[in-house]
């Protein structure tokens, strides 16, 4: 498998002296579905900015499919499609014109540009809006327009900065399906998101960045294996005002009154069940807390800030 993206010792210091990237290394394999996670100000957007030539790096090496961005930026750029977080198209131009114009910037002749624009606007449910000025679109449609624009030159790597920020659940799910389909077709996908559920559901590999440094760069499976405890959500047959004391376990009530039970790796659940039974509490349903990655992420970032340690 070839490398879609290679980053070596990438550094960026802004004019004011702020060091946003402190020498990061990152490799993304061709065909991967990759997430770059980090808190606000961690360096995610700076990294994407350097990859897409919107930010000048201070030093370091970046290559896309083996093409050095310093030596042959034009060729490297043709491999990339970028969907930014903020809407950045001309609000007065028509949807179809925005997409075909973008194809023209990549040297794609008008006839093929129109073909590609038609295909992606139809796939993304925007065909009916093709003659509307972009400012007339809803927020979700604007986001899909940016995806169509990023795909019109048929890139090998699609980079998305917070692609589902501010879109409703239904649309988010349909975008996930679309991105998974693109990935199956062979397009490498790199995204940043603060919906960690999104990264957990979609991505195969994950890097966690904080304060300009990569804290982890591994597969999602291996990352999740590092969780030292797991939280289970238990619905009980009656409402409690405070969580019961369970020997050997830590538990608390969530906002809806369900019992959140933290279980250490290898500890098992039987002890907790026996104690609940003795207390006369019946469990009506049970599930794991969906956002395991979020837990892990918070612990990694806390560790990096010198607080706590939830990882083995």
């Amino acid at each position: 498998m070839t490398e879609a993206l290679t980053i070596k010792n990438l550094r960026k210091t802004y004019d004011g002296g702020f060091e946003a990237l402190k020498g990061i290394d990152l490799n993304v394999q061709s065909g991967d579905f990759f997430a770059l996670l980090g808190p606000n100000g961690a360096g995610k957007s700076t990294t994407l900015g350097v990859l897409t030539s919107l930010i000048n790096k201070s030093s370091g090496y970046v290559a896309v499919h083996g093409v050095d961005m310093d030596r042959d930026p034009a060729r490297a750029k043709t491999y990339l499609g970028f969907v930014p977080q903020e809407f950045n198209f001309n609000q007065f131009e028509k949807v179809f014109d925005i997409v075909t114009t973008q194809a023209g910037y990549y040297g794609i002749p008008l006839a093929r540009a129109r073909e590609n624009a038609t295909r992606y606007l139809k796939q993304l449910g925007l065909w009916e809006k093709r003659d509307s000025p972009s400012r007339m679109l809803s927020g979700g449609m604007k986001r899909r327009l940016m995806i169509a624009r990023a795909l019109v030159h048929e890139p090998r790597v699609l980079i998305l900065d917070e692609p589902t920020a501010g879109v409703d659940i239904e649309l988010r799910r349909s975008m996930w399906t679309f991105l998974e389909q693109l990935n199956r077709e062979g397009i490498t996908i790199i995204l940043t998101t603060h919906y960690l559920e999104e990264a957990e559901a979609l991505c195969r590999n994950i890097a966690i960045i904080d304060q300009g440094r990569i804290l982890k760069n591994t597969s999602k499976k291996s990352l999740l294996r590092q969780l030292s405890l797991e939280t289970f959500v238990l619905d009980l047959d009656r409402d409690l005002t405070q969580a019961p004391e369970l020997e050997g376990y830590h538990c608390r009530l969530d906002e809806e009154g369900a019992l959140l039970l933290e279980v250490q790796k290898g500890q098992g659940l039987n002890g907790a069940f026996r104690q609940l039974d003795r207390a006369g509490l019946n469990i009506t349903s049970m599930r794991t807390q969906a956002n395991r990655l979020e837990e892990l992420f918070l612990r990694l970032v806390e560790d990096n800030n010198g607080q706590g340690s939830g990882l083995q």
Partner: protein
Amino acid sequence: MSPREIWVAFVTIIVREVRRFTRIWPQTLLPPAVTMTLYFIIFGNLIGRRIGPMEGFDYMEFIVPGLIMMSVITSSYANVVSSFFGMKFQRSIEELLVSPVPNWVILLGYVGGGMSRGLLVGLLVTLLSLIFTTLQVHSLLMVLATALLTSFVFSLGGFINAMYATKFDDISIVPTFVLTPLTYLGGVFYSISMLPEFWQGVSMVNPILYMVNAFRYGILGVSDVAPVSALAMLVLFGTVLFVVSLNLLHKGKGIRH
């Protein structure tokens, strides 16, 4: 990019620019037509009759080349400064920055858009002037060369202004406080031979004087300055401003962090 791909990208930028200024024609094409018609009526017809001939021509005939040049200058400049700053403001300039289009093509595309509007407005004003006077053409080559070079130079000027601009005020300061006074004092309405010697000398440092006079020479065959030196100056200005603009784009002044 291959030469063919570069050509497609260049044409794409030009088409987008032309589409922009024709879409908003009441803001871009109509105002200079109305303003210049008023100039023709008031200065040419009403006041001009009392002024009498200038350099051997009716006052109306004398001011027409200057007014055409004035509209070319302001329209070329305004197109690039407002379009490029608008793209910076909306961040749609990022569409170009992420693409493989070389900087010199981006620059030529914007300049081509500015020249298209400047020359189209110049043509409109020329056609309007035919309602009020007859136009002879002394040297078509001189007319075309001056119009093309002037619109090229002022499109570049608009580009540099847009690169430095950080707010909307910044794109109106130069046209209001620099371009308009220089144009009015650039011999549009008078021959500098009418001025005292000192002010003639001062006028000679005004670049717009050379453009107006070169164009007037092309149409009427009279000029306050040597037409060839005026063209040479335009080529020099064009070259310097092109290099400066390209350098700003390479550095990403105001568009890349």
